[in-house]
């Protein structure tokens, strides 16, 4: 079949043609970018934290009337209270292990700094390695379930304790592999010295763990999402956090027992509804907005495709009705049903193809605009191409019903007046 008569016919329906093409172009532009956003959010949500997330929960509590950590006596007292808690928690039958900790991946409460290979370097200057800090004792690694790939874990002898405001840097730390690789590319980081937060006193790396995500989930942490430094340290402050690994299947019981147990050890503290949180809840809270956005985008895409399909069906039906007589004439002159069907399908292919090509340009333009005004990356070509194929296919599917009706027009129509 030649396309010439189709083009000639389309020239008679400029408005309708332009509308369908425009609609396909807009839909393509929006759907491509929306699906790209969905893909990015899904990728974000599925980032691994590096810890063993099952059976893990976090306890946060605040002391009441505790000494401030400004003098040695106060620090010692706070540390005693914390150790008392730890001992009691470790004795629980449902608990596998416990460690004091300052934060967890995805908790969005973090202590960040920088590492340099030179002493006393200005933290803000370029060339330093950004990192987040996790403080905990000798059970931190085993409780979190992170994998040590080189060196050794902390021992009881490594563990120090100090007040929140004491800026003494630790003598030994464990770092994640991304930090080790960046500081000592090609070589082993274990046993090497480096300087934390512009300090002039060196700190030795004693171990390297495979992976541990930072607590922050905002886009500002993207540049150092897996740069974590672990210090063998209990922070003595007027609050404390314990990460608890329950025995398999016993997590709910262990979580339930937590508040009353803690109050029994020492009633002078405050726990609220958020004080005992499973890691699953922490993860859900961190990514709630991303999941919500992905679902919303998905729903809008589906409805948008539906609306576009309905528009194509509507306009094509009208054209079929309008050309009833012409179709009858063609049929009477020998055109087969399949020829009529193909006519409308090719017509739609031409309109949708033109619209989709415009849509590709619009999609790239929209992506550029989004990159300028929102936190967006450049859309990969594959998304646009898939969108193009999808919309052309949508056009073909939508045109099928009216086109089939057209192909069923009887040749006798040619003889009727109207």
């Amino acid at each position, binding site marked *: 079949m030649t396309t010439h008569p189709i083009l000639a016919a389309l020239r008679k329906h400029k408005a309708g043609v332009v509308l*369908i093409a*425009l609609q396909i172009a807009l839909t393509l532009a929006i759907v491509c970018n929306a699906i790209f956003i969905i893909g990015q959010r899904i990728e974000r949500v599925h980032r691994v934290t590096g810890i063993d997330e099952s059976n893990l929960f976090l306890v946060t509590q605040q002391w009441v009337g505790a000494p401030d950590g*400004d003098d040695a006596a106060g620090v010692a007292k706070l540390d005693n209270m914390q150790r008392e808690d730890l001992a009691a928690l470790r004795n629980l039958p449902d608990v596998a292990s416990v460690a004091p900790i300052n934060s967890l991946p995805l908790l969005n409460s973090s202590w960040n700094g920088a590492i340099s290979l030179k002493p006393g370097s*200005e933290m803000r200057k370029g060339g330093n390695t950004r990192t987040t800090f996790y403080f905990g004792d000798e059970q931190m690694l085993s409780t979190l379930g992170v994998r040590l790939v080189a060196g050794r874990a902390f021992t009881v002898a490594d563990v120090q304790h100090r007040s929140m405001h004491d*800026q003494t840097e630790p003598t030994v730390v464990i770092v994640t592999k991304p930090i080790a690789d960046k500081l000592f590319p090609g070589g082993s980081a274990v046993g090497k010295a480096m300087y934390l937060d512009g300090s002039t006193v060196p700190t030795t790396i004693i171990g390297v763990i495979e992976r541990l995500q930072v607590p922050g989930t905002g886009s500002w942490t993207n540049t150092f999402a897996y740069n974590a430094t672990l210090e063998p340290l209990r922070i003595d402050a007027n609050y404390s956090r314990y990460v608890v690994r329950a025995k398999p299947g016993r997590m709910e019981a262990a979580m339930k027992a937590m508040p009353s147990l803690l109050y029994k050890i020492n009633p002078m503290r405050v726990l609220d509804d958020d004080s005992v949180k499973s890691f699953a809840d922490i993860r859900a809270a961190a990514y709630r907005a991303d999941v919500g956005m992905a679902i919303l985008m998905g729903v809008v895409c589906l409805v948008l495709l539906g*609306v576009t399909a*309905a528009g194509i069906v509507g306009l094509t039906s*009208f054209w079929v009705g309008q050309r009833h007589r012409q179709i009858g004439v063609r049929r009477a002159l020998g055109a087969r049903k399949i020829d009529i069907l193909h006519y409308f399908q090719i017509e739609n292919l031409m309109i949708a193809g033109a619209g989709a090509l415009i849509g590709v340009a619009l999609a790239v333009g929209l992506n550029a605009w989004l990159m300028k005004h929102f936190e967006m990356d450049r859309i990969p070509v594959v998304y646009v191409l898939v969108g193009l194929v999808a919309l052309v296919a949508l056009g073909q599917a939508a045109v099928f019903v009216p086109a089939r009706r057209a192909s069923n027009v009887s040749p006798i129509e040619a003889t009727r007046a109207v």
Partner: protein
Amino acid sequence: MFAYYLDLALRSLRRNKVFTVLMVVCVGLGIGASMTMITVVHVMSDDPLPERSGQLYYPHIDPWPAPHGRSTNPHASDNLTLPDAMNLLRAGRAPGQAAMSGAAISIHSEQPNAQPLLETGHYVTADFFSMFGVPFRAGGGWTHADDERHARVIALSSALNRMLFGDSPGIGRTVRVGDEDFRVIGVLDDWHPQPMFYADVNGRAFGRSDAFFLPLQTALDLKLDFRGSLSCHGDGGDDRTTDRCTWLQFWVKLENPKQVSAYMQFLADYWRQQQAHGRFPQSVDPKLYRLMDWLAYKNVVPGDVRLQLWLALGFLGVCMVDIVGLLLAKFLRRSNEISVRRALGARRGQVFLQFGIESAVIGVLGGVLGLAIAELGLWSVRQRPDGYAQLASMDVSMLMGTFLLAIGGSVLAGLLPAWRACRIAPAIQLKAH
């Protein structure tokens, strides 16, 4: 005439129900989606203090060293260091100024065995209450003298007052904050400016309200717990008192342009003076943000919400193109009827009006559906746990806006089809018969 066209429109809509439903659903979905998001953005970008916001300014001076790396928190310099805040406060160059910081404390009444409550509030200085027009149910704020002598006084929200003392205001009574006794000197009326503009608004500006206020200097003195981000540069720790850590918010009240320019001059002079002491290494560039500009600068409406608004508007655009196409098909399908009417003497304007009214009817129906969808959308927004979720509901102006948008959109969408319809020549159509 109008009634007749309306009758014609309804007849025509009844004739092809599938088509009509399709168009109404299309308008409804587009309007519903965009009104949901317009309402959310509207309530989020509302003025938290409509009567006062024009006179409230946030001074921005940047003590950070010059090359801000890309990875550093870009908002580190939005807050002030304690020495800078105190210098601006004591200089007193504006009719009102206050420094403040987020607070988290455990508080309980003086009764023995009272269970302590974990509450969040703000540590502020004296002008806070008069500058922001904080309403008091009983008592009031404190004075500059109280600030200077680190008075142990506290103002409570009515909710916290009720928890501690029941229904009557506990003025003059004592509450224990940590280990210290504080005297209650004021109980607030309901006061929940949304967004909570005076807080460190990075990210979470909605859905919070303060349970108490107590003097900033007292809190520093007693080393109470602060809340909010603390960003430090250089070496030497994160002591709140140093001039290398930014963490305080600062607001000034300026009543006229003359005071504004005078204060700008003062900030520039302060910057230069600090440079003479070896601080503020960047070139002198102080800023004064008006309250609403400050909220815009701080992106109080999160990127995701703005993105959703644009998505909804894009969706509305596609729906409108769809409607234009469907109306075109619908109107031109009736070419015979039109040409008969034209042959019988109807003028073009009348045909145009007839189809305009038909579009408007679809708009009204779509508006009703859109309103229902928008209410459903807002209901689902309210189920979200985000802070702004509770604010998401329509007021009268939004309700009217929905209908105007629906009818306006449909009439606009009907313009091209109606114009095409009214240009149908009477003769040619009749000849075909």
